[in-house]
């Protein structure tokens, strides 16, 4: 067995799942940072994105980029509606808000089972062929996922740093009351941020559709990993989510290659519990007041 090929495989796989975890975790942490809501339904929006991508790509046979846009916008709008009607009433109460997202998750997941059935569906690859660099062969289908995730994150980052709306969101995350005094309409920021967060989850879902299969239950694992990543990087920290996501992807890929995926999962969870206990604010996070 050639170790360098095995190693390259592991790195590539780590980057692919790391990119997905990153997109999941960035959205998750955004909502927590701005709204103080732990969104247990985050994985279900990933699942909805995966299904939207699947149906538009397989049945309508349109370019995958368009599928991604459709997935992000439909799920994003749905997320805004959900925030406005079901999460906003619990703004003052973290616990009730969290339990509400649990209920939303149950409803969405079982709704999907009702509509589309529990059987996983395979989605064809968007591109075929491999990229050969020296002795290594990298399938394009995986490389595309990494590139797309990087591009999506770059857009998100520019939006947050360079636009008025992005600055307003960061202001609300830092201090809601002061943001209000500055004339930022928090009531608009909340649904927007939630919509954007779940749109990112939907993009992750649509991108990963061809890598894994598509079923109503695909959201559970990415959500669990988003938790892990966000704790690694610090709840509410976007750079933490990026670093944590890529790191977790790598850790997972290498430990799964070495010990098998179940042991890898247990190790990850234990690592995170340890970090929570030693550094509750996460590796890159700042201590909360």
């Amino acid at each position, binding site marked *: 067995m050639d170790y360098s090929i095995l190693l390259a495989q592991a790195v590539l796989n780590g980057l692919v799942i790391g990119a997905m975890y990153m997109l999941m975790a960035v959205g998750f942490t955004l909502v927590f940072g701005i709204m103080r809501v732990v969104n247990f339904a985050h994985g279900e929006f990933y699942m909805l994105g995966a299904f939207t991508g699947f149906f538009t790509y397989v049945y309508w046979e349109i370019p995958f980029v368009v599928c991604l846009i459709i997935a992000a916008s439909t799920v994003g709008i749905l997320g805004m509606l959900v925030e406005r009607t079901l999460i906003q009433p619990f703004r003052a109460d973290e616990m009730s808000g969290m339990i509400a997202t649990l209920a939303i998750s149950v409803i969405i997941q079982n709704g999907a089972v009702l509509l589309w059935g529990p059987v996983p569906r395979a989605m064809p690859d968007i591109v075929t062929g491999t990229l050969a660099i020296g002795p290594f062969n990298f399938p394009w289908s995986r490389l595309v996922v990494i590139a797309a995730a990087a591009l999506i994150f770059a857009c998100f980052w520019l939006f947050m740093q360079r636009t008025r709306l992005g600055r307003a969101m960061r202001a609300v995350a830092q201090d809601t009351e002061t943001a209000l005094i500055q004339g930022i309409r928090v009531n608009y920021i909340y649904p927007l941020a939630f919509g954007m967060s779940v749109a990112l989850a939907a993009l992750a879902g649509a991108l990963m559709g061809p890598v894994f299969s598509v079923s109503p239950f695909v959201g559970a694992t990415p959500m669990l990993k988003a938790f892990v990543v966000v704790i690694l990087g610090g709840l509410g920290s976007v750079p933490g989510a990026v670093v944590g996501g890529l790191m977790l992807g790598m850790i997972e890929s290498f430990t799964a290659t070495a010990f098998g995926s179940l042991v890898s999962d247990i190790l990850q*969870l234990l690592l995170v519990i340890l970090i929570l206990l030693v550094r509750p604010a996460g590796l890159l996070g700042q201590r909360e007041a």
Partner: protein
Amino acid sequence: MHGPRPPAIDQDEPRIAARRRWLPAAVIVTLLALALILPQLTTNQFYVHLANLMLLNSIFAISLGLIASVGQISLGHAAFVAAGAYISALAALSFKLPPLLGIVLAGLVTGLAAVALGKILLRLRGVYFVLVTFLAGQVFTLVALNWESVTHGANGLLGIPAISIFGFPLSTRLRFYYFALAAFILVITFVWALMRSQYGRAFRSIAENIRLAESSGIDVSHYQIVAFALGSGIAGAAGAATVHYIRFLSPDSFTFNDSIAYITMLVVGGRHTLIGGVLGAAFLTPLPELLRGFVGAQHIIYGAILLGVLLFIPNGLVSIGSSLWRKSSGTEEPK
């Protein structure tokens, strides 16, 4: 003739006070009598089974409520239930330990484990505690799946014996019903007495304002550990009792979904009162059966009820009852 004292208070006070004294007692006696007699009147084993599950779920919800009463929500409660179930089931299968002792052992071990875990985990508060208990619960399920030499992995443990009291096996649903009823009464009386003691007062003050409690000299971490250990221990013992009733155990028997179910019961019933968990369990346990006609939509309706209660009755079903009670007695209920 009697001077200027306001007559309204003079006349009403003794009547209301007397009513306060006998009404709860009468309600409890009636309920108890009904609970003892009703199962004898039905021949439908399924109703008895539902009643058993209701009683067990009530215990789970009450024990979670005990942890919630110090202001912490555990999303890993089912892990303690499962741990208790595994302890008692394995002790019975491998060492022929009588289930009754197994239940006590399960309660003790899970309670002590909760003391050790609580010392570490309870340093986290609010959302962080929720997340860490969620993750710990996931670790438990994964370990149970993976540790095949002990737990038999996903195949589960078969042939777990029924509880037997002095050689009298509780092998039918009806026999187990009376055991579960006794256990339920024991637990609810214990928690009721605890909440009226100095501990209960400390718990409530911590839930209400943790910093104020701390600066008033209440040892917050001590009381939180006590509540966590008692709640987890009760859950472990009840999990053991459940497994000797269902007589099958796998890593899927008690999972994250069950943790959510217990929280749902607590929230729907009313998370700030003792009766809340019981009401929630009584309302939600038979619900999937009533919704059998809507195959597939059951869980959706379940989730919708949870959302509806959160939105419109934030203090749970129990708050409807207590507002009625206030109206009928014409006074504010003492907190």
